[in-house]
């Protein structure tokens, strides 16, 4: 009986540890902190740091977009929260927006962040409840960011300078 118990324990421990090693090699964490974060995500207990998120939001409203993104990257290190990723994308949009010219590099990073927000939202369509933002759906933001990096004849339209930043 005791032999079977030890054998069963051995099989269980080996399979669990083997699975953990496979997961480590598949996810490739770069630091021990990342190992912990990825494990939290896998276990379904991952939570965004609410205080840091709020600090990031205040910085965003004061137009300090880089600082805001920095706070949000600490609030959501696994990039696994759709709301944070939506705001990160919005910060890229606002920082990259210019009356005469848009920063393509920032817009592309914004597109990546909004794609993450869409992928992470349960129905694939993320909506944020923030009356201060003109664009409240991830689809709108994504379209705006994609439009910004496209090269079309309408880029030469002089009336474009009158377009407002959203």
């Amino acid at each position, binding site marked *: 009986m005791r032999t079977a118990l030890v054998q069963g324990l*051995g099989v269980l421990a*080996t*399979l669990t540890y083997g699975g953990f090693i496979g997961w480590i090699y598949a996810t490739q964490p770069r630091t021990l902190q990342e190992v912990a974060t990825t494990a939290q995500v896998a276990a379904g207990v991952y939570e965004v740091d609410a205080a840091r998120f709020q600090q990031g939001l205040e910085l965003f409203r004061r137009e300090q977009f880089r600082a805001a993104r920095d706070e949000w990257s600490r609030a959501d290190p696994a990039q696994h929260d759709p709301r944070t990723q939506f705001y990160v994308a919005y910060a890229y949009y606002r920082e990259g927006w210019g009356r005469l010219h848009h920063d393509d590099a920032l817009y592309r990073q914004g597109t990546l962040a909004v794609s993450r927000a869409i992928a992470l939202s349960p129905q694939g369509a993320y909506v944020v409840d923030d009356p201060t933002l003109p664009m409240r759906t991830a689809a709108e933001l994504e379209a705006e960011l994609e439009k910004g990096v496209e090269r079309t004849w309408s880029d030469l339209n002089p009336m474009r300078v009158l377009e407002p930043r959203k």
Partner: protein
Amino acid sequence: MSGASTAAASLFTRHVLLPLVLLTVALLGGLRVRPDQSFLFLAPPLVTLVMAALLMALFARGGLILLERWVSGRQTALANVSHALTLLALFFASAQAFNSVLPERGLLHWVFALFFLWTLWNDQFAPFDPYRLIRSLCVLFGTAFVLKHMLLASLYSPRVGWGRRLMGALLEGASLGTLDVAVFAPATGYVSFFTLALYVGALALVRPAPDEDGDVRRLLGEYRRLSTPERAALREALGEEGERPVRSRLTS
């Protein structure tokens, strides 16, 4: 230690400790620490799987593992599953032990791989016993460790003096730039040393037959090395040893 507790310890070692130690080797064998101290986990390249397969064949040939005793119809299904998982862990630990001492890319990766393959292939046809096999493996891994983590690492380290840097540049030039040695933090060498030590320690825990005490095989191996008169003398001495308690009981 009483017989029961020794048996319990042996059972725990065989079914729990040994596979976990082997899996730790499999985990750490692919771990590299980048110069910025971040981790990189390298899955075993295909060539290390071939080497591990050759090494497993060598374990079976050399008598370190008697396969028919590890997985057999005479054992329970659970025991067979446990032993099969241990053998699988041994295979991956072997692959990752090679991965640990194999340069990651470039010409030296293939030079080291050929050196390992040639040695393992030659060993398939050499007479071996488990203890000589472990000793031979220690030398093989030790040599590769010194070459990779001490010699090459010191030549390509960004923090060395101009002499060694010049030597590295000359080597690169002589090899027409095919060496292409990956540079890692010194911690990689320490991890590799610990991994190899753990691997050799795990091999020492492996018994040819899982349910048999390791000393039996060792003594049998020693016995086979004796000459015919020495064997006869030993058998006679053992016979006397066996009769002694009977005689002492009769005389008392």
